[in-house]
């Protein structure tokens, strides 16, 4: 990579991002605050060959995850063959009984997967998490790239980088493939949602309608969008940015006011595609993560190309033994939590906390997974104009149409706190552009 002047433009780029409204909303103490999502101009650079390897591994993983979800809501062969214990399925918060026996259009459950990876100091990539419900974040590197190109055109002339602005094209291809006939709508809970910027950005870029629940209505087993003049347009695909529980008060959470009553019945009859498919959270459960390499073997007859971080399931006796013996070396994760919450590093606990945690672990073994702490490769960020190493991960986006498609970019998030491994934006992290080299 040639040295470039982009890093000198840090302030300008961040100012422009703020002006475009690139913000992240968070709820703290019941109060909604929007905060800027700090952008670091030093990109993460992934070589062409290395990305090819990642791409192959990601396609394989998401294909297997989709097979798993389809199996769970139909024949349940993987349970009958005792590869995955049934309690990990039925007790997962993402398992929805209402999805049993319901086949989504084209059999796709994982339309958009956000797979979190880290690179260890040994250069090996590890999968940290599969985000399948409503993964967010692709808009940030897209708009950052757009602004960077304007601030420092030379940088992009002298480096051979895959254009990442085609994400919307992938999005459109995926949505059109699942569409059952009609308009495509992006369903947002509204502007007080953490990712509202992204919802409006995607709608603008893909030409889909941006709608809230009140603008959509079910009539005679079809879904319609009501436009500003009161005209009704049939809808064939909904890229919904609200979670399963809130989607339909008639089937799921009864008090939901942001959903669309009876939309689930339209979906059940195959008259609309819901993107992503309801119930797919059963596969992004931290407990199920442990089984993904086994799924790849089971459904595809292949060995996993991308490895999981070494994970132990205290549910199994021998794993419990290992976890208790090597407790101090591990990181423990509550399977029901997300967004960097419910993650504890054993070596940061006091003696009393360790004792209490071990007791809890023995009482509720299914609730936790334990993982080896991966020594991430640090990535430089600019802090007061000086290059400083920080922990960072990569969220890769895989979209499913006829074939899985991997976006040649991704969201690189870093921790601003030098001692922290947690990079989630809801925990105050920042982001970088991810360059995939084209030669």
């Amino acid at each position, binding site marked *: 990579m040639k040295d470039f002047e982009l890093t000198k433009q840090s302030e300008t780029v961040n100012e422009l991002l703020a002006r475009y409204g690139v913000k992240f909303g968070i709820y703290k103490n019941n109060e909604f605050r929007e905060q800027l999502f700090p952008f670091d101009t030093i990109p993460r650079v992934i070589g062409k060959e290395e990305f090819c390897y990642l791409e192959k591994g990601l396609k394989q993983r998401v294909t297997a995850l989709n097979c798993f979800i389809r199996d769970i809501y139909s024949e349940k062969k993987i349970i009958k063959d005792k590869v995955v214990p049934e309690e990990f399925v039925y007790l997962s918060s993402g398992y929805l*009984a209402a999805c049993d026996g319901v086949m989504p259009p084209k059999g796709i459950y994982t339309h958009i997967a956000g797979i979190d990876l880290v690179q260890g100091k040994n250069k090996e990539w590890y999968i940290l998490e599969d985000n399948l419900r409503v993964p967010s974040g692709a808009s940030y590197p897209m708009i950052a790239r757009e602004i960077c190109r304007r601030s420092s055109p030379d940088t992009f002339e002298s480096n051979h980088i895959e254009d990442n602005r085609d994400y919307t094209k992938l999005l459109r291809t995926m949505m059109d493939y699942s569409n059952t006939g009609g308009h495509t709508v992006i369903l947002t809970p509204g502007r007080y949602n953490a990712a509202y910027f992204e919802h409006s950005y995607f709608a603008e870029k893909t030409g889909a309608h941006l709608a809230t629940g009140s603008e959509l209505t*079910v009539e005679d087993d079809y879904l319609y969008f009501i436009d500003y003049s009161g005209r009704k347009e049939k809808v064939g695909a909904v890229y919904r940015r609200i979670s399963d529980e809130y989607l339909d008060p*008639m089937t799921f959470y009864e008090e939901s006011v942001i959903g669309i009553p009876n939309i689930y019945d339209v979906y059940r009859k195959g008259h609309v595609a819901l993107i992503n498919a309801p119930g797919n959270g059963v596969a992004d459960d931290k407990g199920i993560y442990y089984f993904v390499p086994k799924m790849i073997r089971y459904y595809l007859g292949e060995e996993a190309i991308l490895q999981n971080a070494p994970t132990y399931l205290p549910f199994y006796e021998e794993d419990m033994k290992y976890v208790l013996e090597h407790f101090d070396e591990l990181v423990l994760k509550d399977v029901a939590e997300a967004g960097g919450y419910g993650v504890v590093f054993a070596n940061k606990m006091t003696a009393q906390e360790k004792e209490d945690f071990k007791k809890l672990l023995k009482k509720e073994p299914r609730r936790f997974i334990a993982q080896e702490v991966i020594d991430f490769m640090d990535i430089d960020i600019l802090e007061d104009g000086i290059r400083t190493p920080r922990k960072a991960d990569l969220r890769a986006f895989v979209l499913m149409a006829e074939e899985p498609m991997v976006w040649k970019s991704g969201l690189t998030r870093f921790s601003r706190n030098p001692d922290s491994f947690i990079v989630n934006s809801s925990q105050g992290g920042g982001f970088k552009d991810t360059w995939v080299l084209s030669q």
Partner: protein
Amino acid sequence: MKNLQFHYHMEILFSQPVHSHIYTLKCLPVTTDTQQIKACEYTIYPAGKVQESYDSFGNRMLYGTEKGEHTRFQVDVTGRAVTGICDMDRQKEKTDISVYKYQTPLTKPQERIRRLFMDCRRQADFSKMPLEEKVRFYMKTVQQHLTYHKGITTIYTTAEESLALGKGVCQDYAHVMLSLCREEKIPARYVVGMLMGEGESHAWVEVFDGAKWRGYDPTNNLEVGDLHIKISHGRDYSDCSINRGVFTGQAKQSQSIWAEVSEIQTEQAMGGIRQDDYDGGKGKPSGQ
């Protein structure tokens, strides 16, 4: 085996006119291994277009939207059923059994249910009891620990809470019994239906005995035979609510439910069976 006729009636009165009323109903009994529905008709007021479907548990659903203003919403279901069919050894219904093995937020045990469960297990020879006997024992235990009392619990009351109160209605009896069975990893499901006589809708429990589902009515400490007509089943109450609806309008609503089940040829009075009292004739359609 009995030939029964039934009439289920549900009515919501709104204090002000409402509109854009969207509803989903699970109020139609279906033929199962133990009951055959010979005839079933429904009327919905206001009369609009109604869609039909089945949910993932196999329950029959009706849903629709009433756009125009109305102050009353009424559902009537009438029909005939043969109950108490027991000439088969194995279930024919295709259902996923495992999903009923696990606790739900409404049945999840806390300290009190766990203690009650341990007390049951301490009974002499409990571990040697066949499944049916264990389930009967749970049923009896539930009946002994709850007193029938209307208006204290709500649809959100958990099994643990109603056991702590020591009071509840059929829904609470069913939830506590489900909680006990599931602690034992016995697949058990919540059932909504109607009981011989006059009253509201009723709720009980079905347990999978390894070959087929058997009904147990903990409110009455009664094994389900030919006196019950089943409407729907699920993991707990929330899977089976007879009516879910949203509407637009600033209105208070009052709901009344009334169900009547009688034998077709020889009508017999059912003494000693507890049901919710029929509420004073309000909403009973004329001509009945």
